């Protein structure tokens, strides 16, 4: 059971391994805080839609399952969007159209189709939670690196020394691609080292 949760964190990390859900990943990570908020919103949607889909999996005819999943997901996204607008207006404004775009985040439909529609509620819940947390962690890492180099802060706190020259490119679109590309490479290096070590044993 625990495995269903942990696999999303590392082995099947949605961003570094599966390379899913790229649009919000790249777009909102100019600051660590935005990455965190987007991660939480996505986690909420993936967990609640996975639970609901797992609940109704026996009643849904196979032919119409994709449209049904999409409608369920869109409903939860609407809820998340309205919640952000009502309670965290600044963040909602900064994230802009990328909150509604969670609807087409392939991670969520991917989980629904590959896991929740075939497994019971508890397992689907853990699986979705793991994916959500893995996604959030990746967003925070990416956001922190970009914020650190691009603005000299992390989560809004100044960390760099006084005379630090900001790398403006990091907060621009080009910086997002470059950072993620290098992070994916780093992830692969660490992963292959770990596999080698495990192989030696």
């Amino acid at each position, binding site marked *: 059971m625990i495995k269903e949760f942990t696999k999303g964190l590392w082995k099947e990390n949605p961003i570094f391994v599966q390379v899913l859900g790229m649009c919000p990943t790249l777009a909102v990570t100019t600051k660590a805080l935005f990455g965190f908020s987007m991660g939480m919103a996505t986690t909420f949607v993936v967990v609640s839609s996975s639970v609901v889909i797992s609940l109704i999996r026996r009643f849904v005819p196979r032919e119409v399952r994709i449209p049904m999943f*999409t409608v369920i997901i869109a409903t939860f996204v609407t809820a998340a969007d309205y919640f952000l607008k009502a309670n965290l207006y600044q963040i909602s404004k900064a994230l802009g159209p990328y909150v509604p775009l969670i609807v087409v985040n392939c991670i969520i439909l991917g989980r629904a189709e590959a896991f929740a529609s075939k497994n019971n509620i508890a397992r689907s819940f853990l699986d979705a939670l793991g994916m959500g947390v893995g996604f959030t962690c990746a967003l925070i890492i990416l956001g922190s690196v970009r914020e650190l180099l691009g603005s000299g802060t992390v989560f809004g706190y100044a960390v760099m020394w006084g005379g630090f020259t900001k790398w403006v490119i990091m907060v621009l679109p080009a910086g997002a691609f470059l950072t993620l590309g290098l992070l994916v490479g780093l992830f692969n290096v660490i992963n292959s080292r770990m596999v080698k070590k495990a192989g030696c044993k």
Partner: protein
Amino acid sequence: MIIEELILILIAAAITNNFILTYFLGICPFIGVSNKMESAVGLGLATTFVMTLAASVTWLVYQYVLVKFNLVFLQYVTFIIVIASLVQFVEMFIRKTSPQLYKALGIFLPLITTNCAILGLTLFMVLRKYSFLESVIFGLGAGIGFTLALVLMAGIREELEFADIPEALKGTGITLILAGMLALAFMGFGGIISG
């Protein structure tokens, strides 16, 4: 002048505010399908077609159904259903009328439903309060920009087959870094349109 404004929207959507390289919309197909020139052109054309169509249909639905009956909170659910059924419809239509075109574009059409560029397009259209004509042009421009980025990337990746890339960066890593460089190059166009 209205024509001038339309041309501005077209160029902005296609080049200066390229959907892939500045809004990060449609990255999944951008990474997945950009390893072959042929499929890149096919997907680009299919997406341009669906984008233009989706922009016009969702505009009409938004203005004459959602706004009129005060149902704007159903916006996301409605848009995604409209886009999904539109893609399905286009697929059936092309299969019946032109088997050749279907052969060329058919396999890409189902992919388009989950392409966030389409939903993103309709959301931007509502946010910016475009008129009907502006929306159609915006859809067309976004499609052209999408095709442009995809084809450029496919061209580079075909050459890359022969390059010596560090093991860890092969595949996704190098594609993302290349996209970053392309985005840098596209920033050069930024001065064309002010504001």
